[in-house]
Structures are given as C-alpha cells and as structure tokens.
C-alpha cells in the first residue's frame, strides 16, 4: 500500500457524510450530497489510477468529472420546479 492508496481510502471515508446527506436530507440537501460526493469520487478514481500504476484508468476519473458538471446542472434545473 502506497501513499496514493492511503489517500484514496481517506477521501473515501470523507464520502460517508455525503452518503448520510443523500439518505437523510430533503431534496436540496441530497443535491449537495450528490455534488460533493461526485467530486470526491472523481479524485478517488484518479488516486487509484496513480496508486496502481494504471495510467489509462485516469480516463474514468476525467469522464466522471465531466459528467458531474452536467448531472449537477440538470438536477438543479429540474429541482427548481418540477421535482
């Protein structure tokens, strides 16, 4: 186990409050939990790609970071009135 994997585990632990928020809050709190959790998930994937020396796996983190932005905007737009 190297420093990158240790950091990935630490960031995974930081994701627990996001899960709690997604389970317990109202609709807007859940949106916040989703946005914070998505950022952390992208960084965890990046750290794991570096930790296991698998350079192509960083593509998954990049894709997730791109999708996070679109997903957050779409959820926020629909939560304004329709959900």
């Amino acid at each position: 186990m190297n420093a990158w994997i240790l950091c990935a585990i630490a960031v995974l632990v930081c994701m627990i409050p996001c899960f709690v928020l997604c389970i317990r809050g109202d609709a807007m709190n859940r949106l916040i939990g989703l946005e914070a959790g998505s950022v952390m998930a992208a960084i965890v994937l990046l750290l794991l790609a570096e930790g296991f020396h698998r350079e192509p796996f960083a593509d998954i983190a990049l894709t997730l970071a791109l999708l996070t932005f679109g997903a957050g905007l779409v959820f926020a737009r629909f939560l304004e009135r329709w959900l």
Partner: protein
Amino acid sequence: MNARDALVWVLLAIGVLGFLLCALGLLLTRDFYDQLHFLAPASLIGAVAIPAAILVHDGFSQTAVKAILIAILLFWANPVLTHASARAGRIRRKGQWPPTDNETFPTAPEKK
C-alpha cells in the same frame, strides 16, 4: 525522503484536509445554504492539491495531464454548480428567482 517526496506528501495532506473540511461542514450544518459553502473546500483545495501532487511526482506524464484537466474542470465547475443549486433552492422556497415585492434584505449598518 527527498524534497520532491516531501512536497508530494504535503500536497496530498492539504488535499485530504480540504475533503475533510467539506465532509465535516456537510455533517455539522443543516441548512441548505450553509451546506452550499462547504462544497468549495472539496473543489477548490482538494481537487487542485491532489492533481498538483501527481504533477510533482510524475512530471508531465499521461496521468498528470489528465489530472490537470480534472483540476481545471472541477475548479471551473464548482462556482457554476453552487450558483445553480442556490438558484434552484431559492425558486423552490420562494417560487421565483427575482426578489418578491415585499421582500426585505438585511443591510450593512451605515458608517458614520
């Protein structure tokens, strides 16, 4: 441990502290607008310090270039997402984004 390794460890620690601050903030606050503020440490500190650590460790490798792209993307997306979420929260509570007719806002005290 040389200076480069030490810098990598420091950047990783700063990054994890950013995520920890975000997690604690989300856990300890209840109001939606308060929680919005704690999205910033994750995207602005954590998501920049950890790609910086990868860049320092590897130089301009394939992973480091993708890490820089991720950092730029998350850094740029955070203010946009925060504004969109705040707007959505206000429209859900008040029914519209512009101030209503009878709405008053707290103002700073005038300087004498």
